[in-house]
């Protein structure tokens, strides 16, 4: 039964769900193997103790917390951007929203795992949850880690709903086109969506409220992640700029991740017709804005510290600016500003490829930024006798690589089961678009096939 001529949008976007190439299986297998290596590394760490990681006295936080902040930052790609664009009713957002929101959900899940991975006794992590227990003790709500627990849970709940609710009409569409087990699964997941005007209206106004609610939550999440650092009087952590600085950095890295994901989808799922250069152009402009904002924050932070000349802060300042961490620091500056700025400023370079190059640079730069916020400060606390140094161990590196693999794998799998571009939203964007006339007999056949 050939329905392609009926609805090219739906057909293009649904195709990946029904046709899977050998390449997909191959790469999924490779990625899954890497993820399993990560799981094994974690098991190894739990068995032998967190000491297999490179953390030490006094650098109690290392790669794991770097990755935590990084992934939580990446998670700001989706829901926040999509919510903002939804509220300002930016038309070009329509093909972008879902692939962005998926990044949020998976990046949050991965990011939220890192605090667990880094715990000395991860099997007791549930003690962070507020519940009446025989221990008669509740979480300490003065601890930024408990704030994290609440903020991340709220954001994750919101983001998952924000992703799932608008997916229902598309699931219904697949239900109507699928047969066999797919029909059953998608039929169940579609919750009996029919597309009545009432349903559409509820969905639209519900999403409007969610968009309003999710924006402050997203801002609060990364602010609270920043609070994990700025609440401690550690040199160069104890800064009021950290909240907005982290939020800006999060959006910055989030957009970069989104651009890379979109470029990959465009190439691999042949979605050139839906993800236009203009999308990259627009996101590229946004990335440029965030790059400038990032540079502004860094300058404000550095200048304030330098001008204040407080000895313990200056120790950290010089360690990053000219000392042991300087190579990483200047790499970060190059990646976050020197590379993206010209690419994204010059119209000629702001192509799909250009945006992807800039985004890769930004991802590397922002990862380094998180590393450089955490480690140099801990290694240079005021009593110089207790200065230390940190080098990551194999377990930490394997786990980090595994989370990148997990992200790609989850994204691939998701795009296998759900149209990665919201079909109904795209159709709204393409109006008016009368469906191609369908022969009566085909309609009759559909009718017979209805659930």
């Amino acid at each position, binding site marked *: 039964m050939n329905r392609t001529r009926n609805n090219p949008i739906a057909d293009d976007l649904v195709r990946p769900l029904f046709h899977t190439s050998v390449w997909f299986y191959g790469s999924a297998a490779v990625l899954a193997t890497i993820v399993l290596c990560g799981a094994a590394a974690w098991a190894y760490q739990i068995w032998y*103790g967190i*000491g297999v990681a490179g953390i*030490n006295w006094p650098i*109690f936080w290392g790669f794991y917390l770097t990755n935590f902040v990084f992934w939580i930052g990446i998670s700001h790609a989706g829901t926040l951007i999509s919510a903002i664009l939804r509220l300002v009713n930016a038309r070009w957002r329509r093909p972008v929203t879902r692939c962005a929101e998926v990044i949020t959900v998976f990046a949050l899940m991965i990011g939220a795992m890192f605090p667990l991975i880094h715990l000395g*006794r991860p099997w007791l992590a549930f003690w962070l949850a507020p519940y009446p227990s025989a221990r008669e003790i509740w*979480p300490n709500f003065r601890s930024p880690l408990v704030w994290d627990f609440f903020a991340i849970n709220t954001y994750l709940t919101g983001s998952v709903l924000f992703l799932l609710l608008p997916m229902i009409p598309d699931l219904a569409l697949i239900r109507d086109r699928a047969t066999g087990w797919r029909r059953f699964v998608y039929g169940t997941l579609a919750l009996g969506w029919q597309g009545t005007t009432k349903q559409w209206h509820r969905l639209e106004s519900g999403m409007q409220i969610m968009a309003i609610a999710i924006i402050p939550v997203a801002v609060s999440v990364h602010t609270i992640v920043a609070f994990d650092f700025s609440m401690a009087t550690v040199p160069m952590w104890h800064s009021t700029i950290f909240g907005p600085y982290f939020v800006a950095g999060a959006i910055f890295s989030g957009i970069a991740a989104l651009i890379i994901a979109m470029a990959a989808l465009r190439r691999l799922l042949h979605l050139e017709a839906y993800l236009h250069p203009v999308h990259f152009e627009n996101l590229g402009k946004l990335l440029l804005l965030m790059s400038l904002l990032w540079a502004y924050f860094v300058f404000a932070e550095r200048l304030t510290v330098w001008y204040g000349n407080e000895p313990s802060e200056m120790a950290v300042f010089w360690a990053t600016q000219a000392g042991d961490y300087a190579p990483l620091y200047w790499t970060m500056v190059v990646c976050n500003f020197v590379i993206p700025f010209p690419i994204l400023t010059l119209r000629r370079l702001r192509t799909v490829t250009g945006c992807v190059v800039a985004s890769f640079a930004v991802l590397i730069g922002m990862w380094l930024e998180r590393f450089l916020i955490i480690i140099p400060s801990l290694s240079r606390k*005021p*009593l110089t*006798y207790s200065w230390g140094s940190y080098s990551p161990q194999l377990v930490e590196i394997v786990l980090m690589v595994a989370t990148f693999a997990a992200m790609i794998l989850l994204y691939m799998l998701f795009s296998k089961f759900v149209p990665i571009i919201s079909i109904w939203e795209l159709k709204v964007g393409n109006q008016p678009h009368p469906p191609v006339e369908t022969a009566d007999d085909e309609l009759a056949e559909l009718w017979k096939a209805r659930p």
Partner: protein
Amino acid sequence: MAYRWGMVVDLDRCTGCEACVTACHAENNLPTVGADEAARGRAMHWIRVERYWEGEFPDVRVKFRPVLCQQCGNAPCEAVCPTYASHQNEDGLNAQVYNRCIGTRYCGNACMYNVRFFNFFHPQWEKPLQLQLNPDVSLRESGVMEKCTFCVQRIKAAKSAAKAEDRAIADGSLQPACAQACPAGALVFGDLNDPESRVARLSASPRGSKLLEDLGAEPKITYLHRQGWHESNA
């Protein structure tokens, strides 16, 4: 009246001999981590004698400074703990409840004095070194943060003994292991709430200052700086 335990470290007496360090290991069941782990920065010394060089050869001097948990009143390590493992107890001690600790190590970061130590692995005592362990001090498992307690086991014992006899703990009768061992008497421990105690009187010395005082953590350890020799004495 409640006790408020504090300490005075007289830097004019301290000779940097580190008797306090081993005394603490012996009293508090601190694990010996071994050379490999020590090389990775996992050595555990609840009390350390910091050494700072000043000047260059031959006009060189050394500053010793024993640093242990300062038992801060406004301890930065406490609030950041999500499980109340680190909190202020009724004697003003910065208590660490090992059983509650889930190992976020946030307290270790928040502590400006870096006096918190983490069990990166299960501590090992090669047989029969376990016979040296102090039965009054619990062992800490892998993944748990630990720190100087002011020898809380001794405080508890002294309190219950005093309570049984319905008296207050006499000044000087109770000492943590470090202060007890210190040959030069550089460490003076006692109740800051008792204005007549030696520690309270020494805390008021004009030689006194707190470590990183401007952070406002209200440490309960007072450092008495070295007394200078004046050429006029010649």
